[in-house]
């Protein structure tokens, strides 16, 4: 029993769009940051699916580099979130508007 590659791609599209929706809807900085990780994961799934389709290893290498960058980004981003929480005492993005006026 084989699975069409397009099923994997549609699953990745579902995950990506849920990530986009939660990026827009959520009001907590940490959850917004987590939805970025969800979108990165969805894109990784398309990379692996296309790598399988073309019988090439390059897509999997690219996923490896995306994982490395995501790990580094999570460390720096969470440090920034901690710094913002120290100064503003809130995690709500509606109340973090230093640059607005």
């Amino acid at each position: 029993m084989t699975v069409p590659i397009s099923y994997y791609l549609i699953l990745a599209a579902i995950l990506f769009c849920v990530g986009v929706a939660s990026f827009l809807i959520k009001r907590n900085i940490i959850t917004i940051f987590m939805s970025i990780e969800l979108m990165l994961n969805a894109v990784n799934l398309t990379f692996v699916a296309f790598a399988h389709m073309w019988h090439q290893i390059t897509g999997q290498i690219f996923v490896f580099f995306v994982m490395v960058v995501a790990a580094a980004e999570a460390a720096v981003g969470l440090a920034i979130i901690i710094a913002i929480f120290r100064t503003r005492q809130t995690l709500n993005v509606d109340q973090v508007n230093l640059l607005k006026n």
Partner: protein
Amino acid sequence: MQLALFIIFGLLAVAGAVNFLLQRHPINSALSLVVVMMSLAVLYWSLGAEFLAAAQVIVYSGAVMVLFVFVVMLLNAGEEERTHGSRAAYLAGVPGAAAVFCLLSFVFLTNSKAFGSTDITSHLTHAVNNIAEISQVLFKDLLLPFEVTSILILVAILGAVVLARKEQ
């Protein structure tokens, strides 16, 4: 067999993602995101990427999500409250995301024939090759980018330490 695997873990991933969207407490969102990443690891394995399945479990659901849960606990983040901004985001965000999904799935379904289909048996017969191939490319052709990632992580660690340090 592979179709059953895909359906079970695909549904699990979608359910985890929807639960991530609906939960209002950050810790529940983080835990459902772990479910999504674990089921994606199984899907990577079913696509013949054993190394990435292991890396997904170790790096994403191991390191990154533990970091997230740690920060949620450290900052003692409570439930997010509904504000005026979130209602506007609902009105703009949900149709926008649905439109992106419709566009993507239209493109994928119209080209469905060209994409072909997976077959796991040919991969499983020489399953060891995956890691051998990846290390061949990573340590020969892409040695410099691979080494540069270590510098990237070092810079990220230093940046995190500097940012999280208490001001005197």
